[in-house]
Structures are given as C-alpha cells and as structure tokens.
C-alpha cells in the first residue's frame, strides 16, 4: 500500500491562540508514525485539521495525491484515512454490531438503499470484532460496555472502513496496562499488513516501543523528527519536555 499523507505549512489559530503554526510533516507510509509533545502543543488541533474536523487557516494536506485541505471529514474517510478520538466516541444507543455497520467503505446508491444488516457487511463486521476481541458482545448496546471495551469497539469501527492510514488520538489514554498491551499488539499486526499509523500518545514507553518515526510538537510546530532513539536524544525535545 502506498497511500501517502503529507502536510505542508499548516496553520490554525483560535482567536489569539496560535494552535498550529506553519507545520510541515510528511508521514512515512507503511510505518507507525507517532506525534508527541507537551500538553497544549497543538497535536490534537493538527490531527483535527488533517482529518477535516477543523478547517485549517493556511497550508495544504495531501492524501493519496488528493488535496484534502478543504475536504469534509467523510470524504477524507472515504479516501482511506480512519481516525479515533481523544475521548473515545462510539454510537452509545446502537449495538456493537450496528456500530460497525455504520462504517462501510464507498457506498453506492443501490448499496445505500440496501439492507444495512446484509450478510456480507455482518460477516466483515464479525471479523473485526473477533480481531479486537469483543465478538461475544455483538448484540450488546454499546453504552453498556466498559471504557476499555468501548476503546476496542471504536478501533473496530475505524477498521471496518478498511482505511489504509489510521490516525489514533491517544489510544492508550484511560485504559489499563493489559489492554494497552493488546492495543499495541493490534497496531503492530495491522501495520505488518501494510497499514500506516499516525498515533498521538502521551505514554512514552508505548511510543518508543511501537513507533518507527516520531514527530515532536512544541508550541504548534514540529521541532524534531526521526526514529525514537534519535528523537529522545535531541536537546530541543528535552528542552520542550523538561524545560532544561
């Protein structure tokens, strides 16, 4: 898979707050890319601009050769970029299975009028539910799941759209260590199948063990990038994190 994601000179301000300033990042296709940085460094705003949730003030986002800077989030998703949210978001009143059936890639008009619960879609959904390990809950209402199970459900929902690039906003946030292990193993497996990951994460242990390429944000711009070892040793990164 060779779907590329490139961001050039992206800027976004909220009133007087410059959340992202002239950020240019080119993510490595087929790898696990991580974005790290102190709180308020603009990671999530950057993430939201790339996925179309927030419209950038300036700059360009290129996904698989398409300029998607001003594209809607659903178009970006259909072009093969799936994302999760910082605070896990699911459809609480739908069942686990229905949560996945919402996300089916490239619906045609006849497909749109066809049954949502068709055997093909259900079979595909079950594959992903089994893979993340919540297939026994398929008929449960999503709001009744534990937070960890909801995290897995969110991930399964993203995967249902068969994205080639997966952006995860704090996949390890608020989950227990055992589940972090499971999520990280899943990321590794899916990456081995050729999917590109972009992960925003505060858990340094996870970032350093999982990622191939790390981008460090500070005050709205990338200040360093490279492999984990290289980034860890970078004095600018130490300064941003520790103020030394």
């Amino acid at each position, binding site marked *: 898979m060779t779907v590329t994601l490139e961001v050039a000179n992206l800027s976004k301000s909220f009133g007087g707050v410059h959340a992202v300033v002239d950020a240019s990042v080119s993510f490595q296709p087929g790898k696990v890319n991580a974005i790290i940085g102190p709180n308020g460094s603009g990671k999530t705003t950057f993430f939201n601009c790339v*996925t*179309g*949730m927030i419209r950038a003030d300036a700059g360009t986002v290129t996904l698989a050769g398409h300029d998607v800077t001003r594209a*809607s*989030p*659903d*178009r970006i*998703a*259909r072009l093969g970029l*799936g*994302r999760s*949210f910082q605070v896990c*978001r*699911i*459809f*609480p*009143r*739908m069942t686990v299975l*229905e949560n996945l*059936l*919402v*996300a*089916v*890639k*490239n*619906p045609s008009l006849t*497909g*749109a*009028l*066809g*049954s*949502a*619960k068709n055997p093909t879609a259900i079979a595909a959904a079950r594959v992903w539910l089994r893979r993340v390990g919540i297939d026994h*809950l398929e008929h*449960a209402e999503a709001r*009744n*799941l*534990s937070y960890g199970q909801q995290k897995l459900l969110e991930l399964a*929902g*993203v995967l*249902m*759209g068969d994205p080639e690039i997966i952006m995860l906003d704090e996949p390890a946030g608020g989950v227990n260590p055992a589940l972090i292990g499971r999520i990280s193993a899943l990321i590794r497996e899916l990456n081995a199948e050729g999917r590109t990951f972009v992960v925003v994460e505060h858990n340094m242990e996870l970032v350093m063990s999982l990622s191939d390429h790390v981008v460090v944000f500070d005050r709205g711009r990338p200040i360093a990038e490279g492999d984990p070892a290289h980034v860890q040793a970078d004095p600018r990164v130490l300064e941003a994190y520790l103020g030394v």
Partner: protein
Amino acid sequence: MRNASETLELERALTGARWLTAARVIALLALAAVLVVFPQTTKVGYLLSTGVVILNYAVTATGWNFMGGFTGYISLGHAAYFGLGAYGTGILVVKAGISPFLALALAALIVAVIAVPIGIAALRVRGASFVIVTIAFVLILLLMFQSMGSITGGSGGLSLPRPFPDLIRTDHHRTFYYIYLGLLAVMLLAWWAIDRSRFGMGLKAVREDEDKARSLGVPTTGAKLVAFILSAFFTGLGGGLYALWFGDLDPVFQFSIMMGAYMVLMALLGGVRSLFGPLLGALVVGMAIEFFKAQYGDTQFHLVATGLLLAVVVLFMPEGVIPAVKGLFARFGPQASSIREISAADLAAERDAEEASKP
C-alpha cells in the same frame, strides 16, 4: 464454549423474542383493523371529521419523524411545509385551474424543491440554532402569505372547491379518511424501508454522534438533506390533502408554530425511534385535543392539557410510550443476557470443573 446455563439463557431469550414479535404483530393487526373499520361504524359527521383530523396529525407527525426521528434534528417549524403544501395545492386549484389531485402532487413536489435551499441553509447549524432557523422560516412564510393577498387570499383566507362535489358531507369525510390512511401507509412503508437501509443507518449515526459518523465516512451533509427533503415532501402532501379536505385556508392556522409543536409532541410521545411512535402519539394527543375542545369549547384549555401531557412524557417516558411499554414487557419477560465481566467466583468454578475433569 457455551455452557449449559448459557444455552438455557439463550433459548429463553429467543422464546421471549418470539413471543414479543407475535405480540407486536397482533397489536399491529388490531390497530390496522380498527383504523380501517372505524369509518364504517359511524354515520356521525363529527366523528368522521375527527377521524380525518387525527389521521392528519398522524401523517404530519410521521412526516416530521423522517427528519426528527432519524437524525435527531428537531424542527419546530415543520408547519412551513404543511402550509406550503396546503397553499400550493389551493393556489394551483383555484388560480391555475389544475385538477385537485394533480395539484396536490405538484404542490408536494414544489415543497420538496423549496426544501432544498432551505435544508442546505438550515442544516449548516445544529441543536438549538437549527430549531430557531426552522421557527424563523415558518414566521417568514406566515408574513409573506398574509401580505400577498392577491395570490394567497391574505388574511381573508383561500377557499377551495370540493374535489368530490357529488358526495354528501359524511361520505366526503369517509373518502378523505381512507385517502389519508393510504398516504399514512405509504409513509410508514417508506420510513420502515429507510430504517433498515444503509442510508438509514447513516442517519441514525448522525442522531447519535454526527462528527463520529463523518469520521467513519458517512456523507452526513447529503444524507441529512435527503431526509429533510423527504420529510418536507410528505408533510407537504399532508398539507395539500388537508386543503382539499377542509377547503378553507388561513395563514394563521397553516403557518402556526403550534402546529409544528404538535408534530414534535406527538412524535416524542409515541417515540421517535419507533416506526409507529408518531402514529401512536397522534392518536393519543389528537384524541385528547379533540376531547378537550369538545368538552371545554373554544378555550385555551386544550393547550394547558397538552402542555401537561408533554411534561409528563418528558419526565416519565423521555423515550416515548413505545419504548416505555417495551421496557415494561422486558421487565416481566426473560432477562436478556448481561454483559458480565468474569468474576473471581466464576473463575474458581471453572478451575474446579477443570480439576474435576482431570483423570
């Protein structure tokens, strides 16, 4: 592997589900039979016209639910499409001399076309802002239709000739009762078809979490617009049919906030997530309104009663009557299997079982 108690639980749940389905089918057939037979049981014009009024409520509430129920976007100004359908039909019949039912179809299509730009504008905002935009639209139309007297008849109203001049009054009501019932059946069928489709799944995802739906690739803008147009179209058909039946239009009644509020109340009362929710709500609220009007004459008492009803629903059955009744049934029926984490006791029991099975 499933153990014996889980299998038993599953069997019980399945029996319960079958029982519920059977109960539902019987209730539906009974309701349909009552609705079909009712006009044959009376020759009293008042009762028949009340039947038509209640079906009109059911049609408009169900029409509203194409938008409100699927997407959760609450329109308080749906009277706009009812009024446009009514006046569209009226003007086409009176001013252009088009035959009544052709005029009705044309008017509904015109309403659908008008709903395109309105929908594009209104659906840019969500929540309370959307509600306000819908109210604004109905108020603008009220002023427009009052002031354009030469076309709309202004405050003096617009009178339509009867589409079936040969029918006596009771037969007129009876005929329209069945036309309304036919329209309602078509609308329920359409709602059902959308409910089970991929398109409907996308709309329901919008209701749950619109941003999340977009992030999963649901083309929410287009989907919402289609739902909005469909909703306006069916509400417009209801309005046009009302014009042909009632024969007298006045902007104050056709473009009233109250009417839009009734649609919302009826749909909420029955349950916006249920196919038959708005119909049930219309039966309850419609009968209540007509009862209070008959009992207390031309006072505002029916509004007070309606307000109280809304308060009771919101407080005790926020999901509507249908889900509340379903919940009640479920309480007495077999327990659905719960999502349980395995407890220490379960693990110990499993271990014991394993130990015991060892030679």
